[in-house]
């Protein structure tokens, strides 16, 4: 009885263990955020990226994002911003349905993969200082 409960617990732990991609890499995440053709983030956002000359002002600063939000909230926002707020202009980076007239080169593909989103989350968590 006791050992079978332990078995179930062990199984649960295995199932709930984060998959390999869950360990995001903050340096890779920074590169994604600041690369215009990849993350596109700085088209709309600005933040503590002194080397980036042209940053948008359509969205809040990314400075302090890691203090305001935890990993789960950041992941949810980036994966499906429009799921949180249908009127948001922030693209749902992990979503491919609900879209129309997508150019053939991008059809059926999310803007960022799950692994890339984890990298971005890991990087945003380092942005704890308000600027």
């Amino acid at each position, binding site marked *: 009885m006791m050992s079978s409960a332990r078995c179930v617990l062990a199984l649960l732990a295995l199932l709930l263990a984060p998959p390999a991609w869950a360990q995001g890499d903050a340096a890779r995440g920074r590169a994604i955020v600041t690369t215009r053709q990849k993350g596109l983030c700085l088209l709309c956002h600005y933040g503590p990226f002194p080397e980036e000359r042209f940053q948008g002002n*359509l969205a809040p600063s990314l400075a302090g994002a890691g203090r305001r939000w935890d990993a789960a909230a950041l992941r949810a926002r980036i994966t499906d911003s429009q799921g949180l707020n249908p009127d948001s202009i922030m693209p749902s980076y992990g979503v491919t349905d609900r*879209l129309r007239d997508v150019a053939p080169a991008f059809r059926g593909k999310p803007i960022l993969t799950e692994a890339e989103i984890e990298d971005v989350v890991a990087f945003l968590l380092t942005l704890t200082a308000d600027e």
Partner: protein
Amino acid sequence: MRWLLLLAALAAAGPRIAAAQPRMPPQAVAQPRSGTQDMSRELQAMQADDSANPGMLWVQEGEALFHRAEGRVQKACADCHASLTGVAARYPAWDDRSAAPMDLAGRIQHCRTEHQQATPLAREGEPLLALSAFVAGQSRGLPLAPPEDSRLAPALARGEALFRQRRGQLNLSCAQCHEDRAGLRLGSALIPEGHANGYPQYRLEWQALGSLQRRLRNCMVGVRATAPAFGAAEYVEIELYLARRGAGLAVEAPAVRP
């Protein structure tokens, strides 16, 4: 239980009640602002000075083509048209023969194939851009005056719907940038109100003159959406709506843009 049902019924009725409200016909932006006003002084000066505006090269080329006899009937545009002052300010307009709206380049195409019986010119080809620039230049300074023509109404409504429809992998609509966020910065680019009063236009990025359809295509590609082929009805429908929302703005073709 009963109030639960009532709540469900209300929730279901909500969107329908909203949709049933009368829709106002599309209006001009209250005080439309030309994209020219947001450019650097240098570019404004380049646009205003005919000897510095690169678009004037196409206008001159267009004037020459306008006077050249063409096609089976060997007639020039100038044999049928003296001045075309004010014409570009009224386009797109209804075309009886095709029973569809037609933009200025479409009209020039049509005159060429029907009245000159010449081979059609390619959309975005140099000769058609030059002729369009020459004709549009004759409306410089005149207010955009889209025709009050009820036959255009369905296409105009489709144009507005296209303007408000989210599209592409980035899932953005024209209105989200040009109506809601004009004046803000998308990366390095100041978002203009997106008016049609400066076309065809010389864009430094293109190093060439380009049509309004080319500009619309750029914006569609920018949000990673499919862009229809040049000349497609969708573009003319959007052009109709742009002319309406920019009504009153002075024609500035050929404008200069970064």
